[in-house]
């Protein structure tokens, strides 16, 4: 197991390097293919009506006139060894891990990522708990009452949940529950350490919006899995032992049906930790997702790289955990 983990971690590092190379390439090569040179690229990071000297100064500061491999090498070296940055009167130093300084506001990227991460974590983990419990519960009940009114109603709602985009559900819920009826007024992010009650209260709508989508998926998945599992022979054996039906359903049926769900959950959560983009933008929550959108809109390379690396890291780690979980959950895989 330890060998497995170390091997995977090494692979993770290589994968992250690969991802960073590709992102770097896309950022620079695409405008180059459109015919834009470094000078024109630098013009984006200067104010209105710049003098040519200003554009040139920015081009040199950002190192845009260097060949790509050099820029990339500098970037990777910066992550590992830190960067000395001329902030004007002084030289700043940002230590490992240094994901560079923003092209737009000259501030180090890593602290911004760190300060945004709790927001995304709050949204993602809160919603994840809700959708896992809610989705699985509904799925189990639907499977047990297949064909009943409850089953048809819940699968119908599940269809809606899967089909309606997050920004639609989010905006509608804001319109109704925040502006029309002030049940959740002034939804904005409050840190959990600042005011835990307000933190939770302001997150209810984002949680519900995000969870609605995923719970629908998980309900359908659980239902299908349960229907399959409950027809298995070991369920018959469990009943033959005289176990109460509830234990048969949960401990024997659900336990077996849960395997694919747990693995998908790991992947979904991993993806979401890199930024719940639509949810954060809809509710104006300053997390990694919103950071991603702004970084792209601003064409801010260090910010884009930083957030892509973090998101990739989460996804790769989530994959690794999911693979481990698979072995933990299903003993047949272990040996």
């Amino acid at each position: 197991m330890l060998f497995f983990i170390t091997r995977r971690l090494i692979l993770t590092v290589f994968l992250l390097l690969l991802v960073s190379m590709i992102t770097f390439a896309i950022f620079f090569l695409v405008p180059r293919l459109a015919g834009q040179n470094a000078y024109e690229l630098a013009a984006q990071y200067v104010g209105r009506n710049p003098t040519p000297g200003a554009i040139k100064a920015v081009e040199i500061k950002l190192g845009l006139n260097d060949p790509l491999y050099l820029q990339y090498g500098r970037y990777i070296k910066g992550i590992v060894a830190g960067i000395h940055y001329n902030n004007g009167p002084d030289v700043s130093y940002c230590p490992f891990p240094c994901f560079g300084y923003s092209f737009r506001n000259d501030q180090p990227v890593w602290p911004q990522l760190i300060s945004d991460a709790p927001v995304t974590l709050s949204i993602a983990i809160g919603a994840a708990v809700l959708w896992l419990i809610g989705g699985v519960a509904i799925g189990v009940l639907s499977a047990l009452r297949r064909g009943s009114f409850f089953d048809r109603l819940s699968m119908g709602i599940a269809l809606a949940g899967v089909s309606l985009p997050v920004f639609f559900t989010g905006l509608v819920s804001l319109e109704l529950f925040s502006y029309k009826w002030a049940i959740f007024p002034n939804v904005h992010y409050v840190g959990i350490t600042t005011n835990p009650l307000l933190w939770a209260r302001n997150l209810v709508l984002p949680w519900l919006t995000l969870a609605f989508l995923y719970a629908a998926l998980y309900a359908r998945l659980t239902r299908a899995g349960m229907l399959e599992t409950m027809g298995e022979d070991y369920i018959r054996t469990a009943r033959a032992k005289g176990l109460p039906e509830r234990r048969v359903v949960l401990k024997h049926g659900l336990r077996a049906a849960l395997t694919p769900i747990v693995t998908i959950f790991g992947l979904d959560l991993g993806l979401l930790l890199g930024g719940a983009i639509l949810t954060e933008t809809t509710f104006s929550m300053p997390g990694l997702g919103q950071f991603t959108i702004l970084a792209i809109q601003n064409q801010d390379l260090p910010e884009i790289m930083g957030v892509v690396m973090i998101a990739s890291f989460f996804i790769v780690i989530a994959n690794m955990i999911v693979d481990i979980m698979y072995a933990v959950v299903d003993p047949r895989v272990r040996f």
Partner: protein
Amino acid sequence: MAPLLEVDELRIHFRTDDGLVRAVDGVSFVLDRGQTLGIVGESGSGKSVTSMGIMGLHQGTKAEISGHIRLDGEDLVAATPARVRELRGSKMAMIFQDPLSSLHPYYTVGQQIVEAYRIHNQVSRQAARQHAIDLLGRVGIPQPKVRLDDYPHQFSGGMRQRAMIAMALSCDPELLIADEPTTALDVTVQAQILDLISDLQSEFGSAVIIITHDLGVVAELSDDILVMYAGRIAEYGSAADIFGQPDHPYTWGLLASMPRLDRERTARLVPIPGTPPSLIRVPSGCPFHPRCRYTELVGGERCVTEIPPLRAVRSLGHQAACHLTAEERARQWADLSAGKIPDDAAEPGSAEPEAREPV
């Protein structure tokens, strides 16, 4: 002494979109303590449905059950589901055909046995574990303390079945039902398992019902044999009766289609022509008549129109449901056991079975 199990006119029907499935249609038998009953038949004869019915495992399905199942005097058909559940696993236990799919793959064998034990007995986990170790040892699994914590897929086929037997016996049941216990196993292992069941039966004193399609299995263990066809009893009697003087063409067919050591190698096996009938459209009259060679001997359309009653012909404990006279039956069996294949054995009754209207 009252019998342990009395099944009286048990009917188990399933209402489906295609019609009414008469899986078990009037089955009665009796089982005494410590005795073994073998229930024999092809797939679809209703033997598994009967045993599941005894265990109350049709609860929650669309089964319509009528008749009586008296376990130690208590009618299980009339009892509450909670009561039947209490008895399940404790007073009556069941083992199944495929131990790999019948044991939960995610729990260790020990966990599953402990669970079976603790649901009916208020004991500590430690005590239950010890009991499980004892049971595993008793069913012949080496190093039980270690193997307790193994998963089902880590056992060989035979060992798995032993573990399942151990689990079934954990609460010391008075009735053990074994549904095709050896079908999924190698022949050599089959013998071991059957021996085991026999040993445990004498040790624990439980009554056993063995369900199988394999007469060889039944011959070893059973005191009595019940031959089922299309949800009904074709023949019922002691093992000696059934093997010595079978009284039903279906039983003859089963025996004749079995390869035997005491027959000539070149002797032809005589299979039963045709296929088992659909339980929705059970043939009218005698359900076996479409596949029976002897309908002409009976004469007229009697086999088609009249359901033959289950009647004792030779001795009180030996019943068969056939229109042939006792003499005819004796003669035909004598011919068959001498190796004579009937001349008209080629084409059995080719008349289309007249379906009874589904009720």
